């Protein structure tokens, strides 16, 4: 029996040992090993290993440093070879660069967007300590989380809790869209109400004014730079001036204020935008007793916590503190980091449920998919080109190039290409940024921010590295002997990889085509669905200034303008109405619970203005004197309440018995995500001081002239106020902002993916055609027709595309169905969509492949075979 020393020990010895000593040492050790075998066979292996280990010393360890290389010369050579290869296969190079440029510019755009989203609201100096107090509040429909807090909270927290360094209470929406007047100038502006600490807690820089005592008086106001310039020309001239503010509502707020400060215009990295800051005492005092107690929650509270505080403990302490102030308060409170509100603003049943972060994630994934597809193109093109470079590799290897050198060379080449693409992509990004900002509704700029610069180099670098690793390993693995002899057979596995990549690309493409078609169909459906009312040519004006008193005059005057069909007014908007109340009793009520309904208080002619169809009965009319106690319901309400023969029946609503005079057909006043819910119209008495939304229906085709006429009337009755109107079509579109954004983005996204997939396929087809040109030549000589050759060449690729379609269809069916489920009213998926997507994919693939195939098939066999 012949025993051998342990193999791995021997390998280790060979790995580290200097070559000039290896044979001697190995021989001596084996001789000793054989000797040992005779004496103590059990120990022989151990002994051998031990001896090997004893030789692992500086005297015998070989130098692992490769010879000092002339690095600069080497890179020069890499560069030269790269450049020659680029020029030799210009077509491939251009395909590669186009693909990478598309992918990179898209990825850079998305990066800029994501970067902006992630940094939103983080500019406040004490961002890490800045928290907002949220209230958890149970409702019959589940737990809600709101940012309302008692007005007393901020002051109390500051005084009674050592962990809270500072606190401010803020009222945000109440003073939006007020009117500011100075001398003859009137502007609309958004106001914010805050306690004195506002500029200490938030870092909105002041241009003028001292932030410590700026809001000390309740008739002080701080205005934005832009507003100051509009009113006074120079921002600093604003200090000390008096301006008039007017905001009407349940209470009217009309007073003169002294400008004591000017703050810098709020930049795009803040999610909160406002033009003026008032002292919140001014607001709260009007609201009187209701404000300064613990049960009403008029304000939002923001706090600066001490560094290193345990937020969970603080949550409990704050809840306990508030509950101790008033026995009736059972709700709990918690702190939420202010800058997180922007991205994680949604709650589902009291639990944080994402928000805009969903889009951030979605778009990041999209960018990664695009980059992966671009990398795949690069990979498949480089490996396909391998045969062209085999001789180069063979010669290099024979001359002593190590595999490492070759790998580095290929990586260098792809880095060079990505760098070229980066330059192009940066140009594209700079040129198309305004367009992108328009689509995404952002104000992105290319700033020289360290993160952005890093990303601009890191994204291409990683892309280049990722796309070159497989080709580099693959190309450098060739055996120089067989390459130079010319009998290298491309392995089956490698062909599979390339085919797999094509299938993946087309799967993504087909899925996207289906999604885009479905999204567009649904958007179309939204636009064209009969909502039960006509939203065309209705404009909305708000009731400002003199209109408060002279509304009736205005409406009478407006009706005289030619082209005005109807006009009316209501307390809130119809579209997106969110004003709930309950019908407490009705004839034939069976259950205990009140019927929840959406309420709209309207004046006469509202139903006519909106063209809502009546099912039974009548709309409010001046011909009946006592309509103030009459109501109109929609069909959904009647059904939900189980009313039979409803006209003339009475219901109890808002504490009074009211008679039903009409039933409207169901109309879609919310977005199509929601089902039509019960709705009630109540007459808004003409002497009421509220009812701020004025609606005017204009005859189609006369919009311009009619609006001009309305403007004239407006200026006559309400001089000095800007005439601002909005078509309610725009209100309707606002319901679908995120959907239309997704639709727009997915359009571009699909376009780029299709382009990239085509580039990849086109490159592969070109390559195959080249590789098989001798075969084609012989076939033609023997008598094959152009068609049969074209078919032969295209067949392989079309097969792949068909496989991709087969994979993509279930995926796209599932994902689009999921998306559609968000809508209560949606289109049904139709089989032709999938058919169409398949045909488009095959068509595109055929165009990419066919051109090359036909070209190859038409080539004269003399040229391909003649030079043999």
């Amino acid at each position, binding site marked *: 029996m012949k025993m*051998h020393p342990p193999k791995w020990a021997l390998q280790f010895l060979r790995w580290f040992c200097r070559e000039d*000593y290896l*044979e*001697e*040492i*190995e*021989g*001596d*050790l*084996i*001789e*000793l090993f*054989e*000797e040992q075998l005779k004496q103590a066979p059990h120990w022989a292996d151990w002994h051998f290993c031990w*001896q090997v280990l*004893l*030789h692992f*010393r500086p*005297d*015998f360890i070989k130098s692992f440093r490769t010879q000092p290389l002339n690095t600069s010369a080497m890179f020069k050579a890499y560069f030269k070879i790269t450049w020659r290869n680029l020029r030799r296969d210009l077509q491939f190079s251009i395909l590669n660069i186009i693909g990478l440029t598309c992918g990179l510019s898209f990825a850079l755009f998305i990066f800029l967007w994501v970067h902006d989203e992630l940094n939103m609201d983080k500019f406040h100096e004490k961002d890490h300590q800045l928290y907002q107090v949220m209230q958890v509040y149970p409702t019959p429909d589940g737990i809600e989380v709101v940012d309302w807090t008692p007005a007393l909270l901020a002051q109390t927290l500051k005084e009674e809790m050592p962990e809270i360094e500072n606190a401010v209470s803020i009222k945000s929406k109440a003073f939006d869209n007020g009117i500011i007047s100075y001398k003859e100038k009137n502007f609309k502006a958004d106001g914010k109400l805050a306690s004195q600490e506002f500029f200490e807690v938030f870092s909105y820089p002041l241009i003028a004014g001292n932030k410590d005592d700026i809001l000390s008086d309740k008739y002080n106001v701080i205005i934005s730079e832009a507003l100051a310039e509009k009113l006074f020309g120079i921002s600093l001239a604003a200090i000390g001036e008096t301006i008039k503010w007017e905001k009407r509502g349940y209470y009217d707020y009309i007073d003169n204020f002294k400008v004591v400060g000017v703050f810098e215009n709020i930049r795009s990295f803040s999610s909160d935008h406002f033009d003026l800051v008032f002292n919140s005492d001014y607001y709260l005092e009007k609201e009187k007793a209701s404000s300064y107690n613990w049960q009403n929650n008029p304000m939002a509270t923001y706090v600066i916590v001490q560094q290193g505080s345990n937020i969970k403990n603080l949550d409990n302490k704050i809840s306990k503190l508030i509950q101790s102030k008033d026995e009736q308060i059972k709700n709990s409170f918690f702190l939420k980091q202010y800058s997180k509100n922007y991205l994680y603003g949604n709650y589902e049943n009291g639990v944080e449920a994402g928000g805009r972060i969903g889009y951030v994630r979605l778009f990041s994934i999209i960018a990664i998919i695009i980059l992966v597809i671009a990398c795949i193109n690069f990979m498949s093109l480089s490996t396909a080109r391998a045969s062209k470079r085999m001789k180069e590799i063979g010669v290099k290897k024979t001359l002593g190039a190590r595999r490492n050198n070759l790998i580095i060379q290929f990586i260098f080449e792809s880095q060079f290409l990505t760098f070229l693409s980066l330059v192009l992509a940066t140009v594209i990004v700079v040129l198309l940024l305004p367009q992108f900002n328009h689509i995404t509704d952002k104000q992105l700029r290319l700033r020289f921010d360290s993160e952005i610069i890093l990303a601009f180099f890191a994204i291409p670098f990683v892309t280049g590295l990722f796309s070159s690793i497989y080709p580099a390993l693959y190309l450098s693995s060739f055996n120089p002997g067989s390459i130079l002899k010319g009998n290298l057979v491309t392995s089956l596995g490698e062909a599979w990889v390339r085919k797999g990549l094509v299938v993946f690309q087309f799967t993504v493409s087909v899925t996207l085509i289906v999604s885009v078609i479905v999204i567009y169909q649904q958007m179309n459906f939204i636009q064209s669905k009969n909502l039960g009312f006509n939203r065309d040519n209705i404009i909305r004006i708000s009731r400002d200034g003199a209109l408060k008193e002279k509304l009736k005059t205005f409406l009478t005057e407006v009706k005289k303008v030619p082209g005005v069909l109807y006009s009316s007014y209501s307390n809130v908007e119809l579209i997106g109405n969110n004003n709930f109340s309950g019908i407490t009793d009705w004839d034939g009520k069976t259950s205990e619970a009140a019927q929840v309904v959406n309420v709209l208080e309207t004046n006469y002619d509202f139903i006519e203005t909106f063209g809502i169809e009546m099912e039974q009965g009548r709309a409010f009319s001046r011909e009946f004197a006592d309509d103030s106690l009459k109501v109109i319901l929609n069909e959904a309400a009647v059904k939900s309440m189980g009313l039979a023969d409803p006209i003339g029946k009475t219901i109890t609503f808002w504490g009074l018995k009211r008679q039903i005079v009409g039933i409207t057909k169901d109309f879609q006043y919310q977005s199509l995500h929601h089902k039509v819910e019960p709705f009630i119209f109540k007459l808004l008495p003409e002497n009421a001081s509220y009812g701020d939304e004025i609606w005017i229906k204009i005859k189609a085709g006369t919009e311009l002239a009619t609006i001009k006429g309305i403007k004239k009337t407006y200026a006559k009755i309400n001089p000095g106020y800007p005439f601002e109107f909005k078509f309610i079509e725009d209100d309707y579109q606002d319901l679908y902002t995120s959907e239309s954004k997704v639709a727009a983005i997915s359009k571009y996204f699909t376009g780029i993916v299709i382009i990239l997939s085509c580039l990849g396929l086109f490159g592969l087809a070109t390559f195959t055609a080249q590789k098989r040109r001798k075969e084609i030549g012989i076939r033609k000589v023997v008598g094959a027709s152009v068609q049969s050759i074209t078919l032969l060449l295209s067949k392989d690729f079309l097969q792949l595309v068909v496989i991709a379609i087969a994979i993509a269809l279930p995926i796209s069916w599932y994902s689009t169905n999921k998306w559609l489920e968000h809508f209560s009213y949606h289109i049904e998926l139709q089989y032709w969509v999938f058919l169409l997507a398949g045909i488009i994919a095959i068509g595109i693939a055929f165009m990419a492949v066919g051109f090359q195939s036909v070209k190859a098939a038409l080539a004269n066999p003399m040229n391909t075979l003649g030079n043999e």
Partner: protein
Amino acid sequence: MKQASLGEFEELILLVVAAQHDQAYGVSIQEFLEEKLNKSSNISAIHVALKRLTDKDFVQSRFGGITSERGGRRKKFYVITALGKQMLDQQYELRTSIYQQIPKISFG
């Protein structure tokens, strides 16, 4: 040129190489040492000493023929060089001259 020094173990190995003239290789040196010193020495130590002696030009080496033993590896035979012999002579003289100066002491 600075005279190369010779360590104790190296000197011993050099002596063995000289004694086993033209037939000294790693394992044979180890066996010889074991026999004479009655103490096992490590082969790696011998390899190191041989390498250093070669570096100092005290020994030369040549490869033997391939045999079926030793897994087919050739033996590396060492021969002492003139320089090595000279070194040994010097050492020997130095030692004997000093030795002869030792007064006759009896250690009873």
